[in-house]
């Protein structure tokens, strides 16, 4: 019946979820990933321009740290090449003060981003 305390940043990102939502314009690719045990489910939407990610949106069902990580990733992705989208999951976990047990869920975020990036990479720039 209890949870660890959350950092102010996690609580803020959970409350605002900046960049969340399913985009409705054209030219977006999506990737998704799931982890059944915790019912974590992440979908990332990416838009590219000149071989770089131009915009990122996400949908997420997951714990506060997972939502916060998705939000951080969405802010971090624009400007990167699709091949560069490997999150430094350990550093981000430390920044978000996430317990070690959350790393598995963080990899779900990474996996969804990777899946979307793969599609971008497969497209003509």
């Amino acid at each position, binding site marked *: *019946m209890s949870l660890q305390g959350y950092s102010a940043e*996690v609580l803020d990102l959970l409350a605002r979820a900046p960049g969340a939502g399913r985009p409705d314009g054209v030219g977006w690719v999506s990737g998704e990933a799931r982890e059944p045990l915790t019912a974590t489910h992440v*979908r990332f939407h990416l838009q590219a321009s000149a071989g770089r990610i131009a915009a990122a949106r996400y949908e997420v069902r997951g714990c506060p740290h997972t939502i916060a990580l998705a939000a951080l990733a969405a802010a971090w992705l624009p400007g990167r090449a699709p091949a560069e989208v490997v999150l430094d999951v350990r550093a981000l976990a430390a920044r978000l003060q996430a317990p070690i047990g959350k790393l598995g869920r963080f990899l779900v975020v990474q996996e969804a981003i990777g899946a979307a990036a793969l599609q971008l990479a497969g497209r003509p720039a």
Partner: protein
Amino acid sequence: MSAPPLYFDHAATTPLDPRVRAAMFASLDAAPGNPSATHAAGRAARERVEEARAEVGALLGAPAAAIVFTSGATEADNLAILGAGRARPGGHVVSLRTEHRAVLDACRRLEREGHRLTLLTPARDGRVDPAAIAAVLGPTTTLVSVMLVNNETGVIQDIAAIAAECRRRGVLLHVDAAQAAGRVPLDVSVLEADLVSLSAHKIHGPVGVGALYVRREPRPALQPLLVGGGQEGGLRPGTLPVHQLVGMGAAFRLARISGPAEAAALGLLRDRLWSALADLPGTYLNGHPTARAPHILNVSFEGVDGEALLAGLGGLIVASGAACGAESGEPSYVLRALGRDDALAQASLRFSLGRGQTAPEVDAAAAQVREVVLRLRSLAPA
């Protein structure tokens, strides 16, 4: 932060009632009296202890002499189960998978000490059929332990029927009533239990004090957990913490006097809360729809993460199935025993109500929960 958060976690612990507080303070301010001593202060302390004992007994319709004070319901559960089990080595013990950890772990300890253990899974509504218990009672069965009110779901078991089965076979019945006192009728002449665990802090008394009711006739043999000192008829040595016992007595007195009316009022609030949530799609009541204590409402919300739900409810203090027990991080074993999948067990909230709570508080809580559930669902992939 704006307003202080609304407290919906009375099944975890309750605020001290001001009248209990006053009684405890008066006791703490009295002349120091070890109730085992016979000078005037010691005698006065002993009288206060015996008054408190009588008050605790009265809520159960039991004589004061049937009440053994402990440090809480955890100890009472242990004293009942380990005490009865060790006095009857090599027996067979029966309990439910939905019991409190103090009961389950004590049963498992007995199992390691050479007892046979049967843990039954209740029906999906949280109730166990007394016939299912009767079916596993055998010639070596020594003890059955079934709680009256479940601390996560509020589900009430049919103790009187279970007791009848136990009596027929000469098996002891222990009942964890930590969540029942002051919330549902608790008359031992109706329940016919041999051993009943009680706690003060679940009904606006102090933390750190509880009691075990031990039937007088026939009086079940118990091996004490602690030795040395002879207090509590040898069942529980140690200098008696008079202020704590006085607090428990005062809390049980209030429960006896105002419990029934209060329970009715809490039941109305609980229904109001459920009405305000039930029309959210994908919302499930956990536990039996009617055989339930008035102060607990347990609800699962489809399509949200339990931890995010709880974290989003900054203005509410409420328990979650997300991580029952800070260490484990596993979803509620009680809800899983009722057949909820991990996701629904985890995405559950236990609202528990207490003295002085109001309809506007309930409405505000429901509004917060609806908002957070809808918002989290809006974030989730379709």
